């Protein structure tokens, strides 16, 4: 190759590399657009709300006076509703996912179920709210309660849990399954000794991501009848007179963080908007904590899984 050919080759490579550079810049811009939007939003909320965040804000009930108002009933409501959601969605979702992967025969019937599960993830959340209003509130008579809200959100995140479970199970190499079956294990022994333990990191991640979505849901919770102003907590077990039962709190009226925020943003006074920003800051913090927990748990659990 002579000097001139070498020169033109280098020029060609340089012109090809311009596309690498161009796409790199575009990619960073696209990434920034998403990240910066969130950062700007979060920063704005922090600036407006930070002045309101103190212990009193967390331990006070809502009030007509913005300066005295707090989010006690909202965050307690959110935590309790999430507890119900997790208790309902995890066993149902994991069982469904395990069944579809390890037990179900492959035929047209299970194909239809699979398509349905995937589609459920795309159903608007307000539809779940209407379903829950009809089913849980009116048909089952569970009332406009923490139980109803928790079950509604459980339905909402069930597809997420099922899909996460199935994907985690599919990541287990077939040769591990065969090794277990070759030891004389039944399908149930393979599932309980191997499949579920080895996929627990992926399942947990899916559950927490689902929960992080559920904690910010407003529409279905309003539909089933959460209160917008509530100045008492659900009864703790074995307190009050007459003494509350172990599960009485499940049937108590409630509110949740996004509804509290929604309520405050609709007020004309500037001070309530600051309250809303402060509540939003705490809600985002709760979500980020859950996501962080998911990452940490995944790391912890995967450390002991090597194929």
């Amino acid at each position, binding site marked *: 190759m002579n000097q001139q050919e070498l020169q033109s080759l280098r020029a060609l490579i340089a012109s090809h590399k311009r596309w690498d550079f161009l796409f790199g810049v575009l990619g960073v811009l696209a990434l920034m657009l998403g990240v910066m939007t969130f950062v700007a939003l979060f920063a704005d909320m922090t600036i407006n709300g930070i002045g309101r965040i103190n212990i009193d804000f967390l331990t006070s009930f809502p009030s007509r006076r913005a300066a005295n108002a707090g989010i006690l009933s909202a965050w307690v409501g959110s935590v309790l509703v999430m507890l119900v959601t997790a208790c309902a969605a995890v066993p149902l979702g994991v069982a469904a996912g395990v069944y579809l992967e390890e037990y179900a*025969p*492959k035929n047209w019937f299970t194909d239809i179920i699979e398509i349905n599960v995937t589609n459920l993830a795309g159903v608007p959340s307000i539809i779940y709210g209407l379903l829950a209003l009809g089913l849980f509130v009116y048909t089952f008579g569970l009332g406009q309660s923490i139980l109803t809200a928790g079950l509604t959100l459980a339905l909402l995140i069930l597809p997420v849990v099922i899909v996460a479970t199935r994907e985690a199970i599919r990541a287990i*190499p077939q*040769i*591990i*399954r*065969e*090794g*277990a*079956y*070759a*030891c*004389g*294990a*039944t399908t149930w*022994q393979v599932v309980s*000794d*191997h499949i579920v333990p*080895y996929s627990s990191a992926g399942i947990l991640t899916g559950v927490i991501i689902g929960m992080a979505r559920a904690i910010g849901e407003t529409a279905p919770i309003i539909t089933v009848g959460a209160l917008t102003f509530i100045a008492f907590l659900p009864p703790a077990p074995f307190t009050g007179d007459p003494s509350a039962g172990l599960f009485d709190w499940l049937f108590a009226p409630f509110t949740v963080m996004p509804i509290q925020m929604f309520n405050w943003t609709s007020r004309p006074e500037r001070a309530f908007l600051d309250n809303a920003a402060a509540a939003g800051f705490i809600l985002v913090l709760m979500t980020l904590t859950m996501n962080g927990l998911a990452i940490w748990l995944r790391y912890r659990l995967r450390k*002991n*899984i*090597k*194929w």
Partner: protein
Amino acid sequence: MIAHAEHDVAEVVPPLKAEARNLSFHYGSFQALKNINMPVYERKVTSLIGPSGCGKSTYLRCFNRMHDLYPGNRYDGTIEFHPDRTDLLSKAVDPIEVRMRISMVFQKPNPFPKSIYENVAYGLRVRGESARSVIDDKVEAALKGAALWGEVKDRLKELGANLSGGQQQRLCIARALATDPELLLFDEPTSALDPIATANIEELISELKERVTILIVTHNMQQAARISDYTAYMYLGEMIEFGVTDQIFIKPRRKETEDYITGRFG
């Protein structure tokens, strides 16, 4: 009959452990095994050789009903298992029962992502054994049987996956041995290992035949010649020739076997 070809060689025929009769196997509409007849003799090593795709692994996996795990598979014929003459392929026989009597070691080491101890103990746990002292003893015996005890006795709590490839394969052999199987199946157990680990496994197999019948698939003819008492040559789903290993390698009866052995084909 192919099955009795070794009668020509002046040798006492050992007792039978299993015998395949008119065994055919279909994956859906594809016939992978065609009318196979072959004995497996007790406490002997029997090798299955043949080019890729000849059906030797498929044949091996009939013995522990591994094909039952997947839909659309069909067995025809019988594999009679001695001394009780149970037909391993019969629909009336639970594949779980078959797998409890017959252990398997796979091509790629597949330890569970559990501790070394739990890997070996798994077969016992599946059988409902819960007495710690019994499990301890059997785990130790199995690891000794797999020539791994000396290397792992101080690290039984560590993950099986932390061992080297050859050690992992011996761990899988220990897992298979822990339940005192009557027949041990090996599916190309050294194909993923380096030469030293391969030599260790081969030596181990020669020791193991004192206590257990062994059926091994290998694509390495030298390995078959080194470790096995009997050898079967398969091609395109058919059993071409079965006989004493020396006879197969020194004076094969069939032209196809000779071509494969001498490297003119395959």
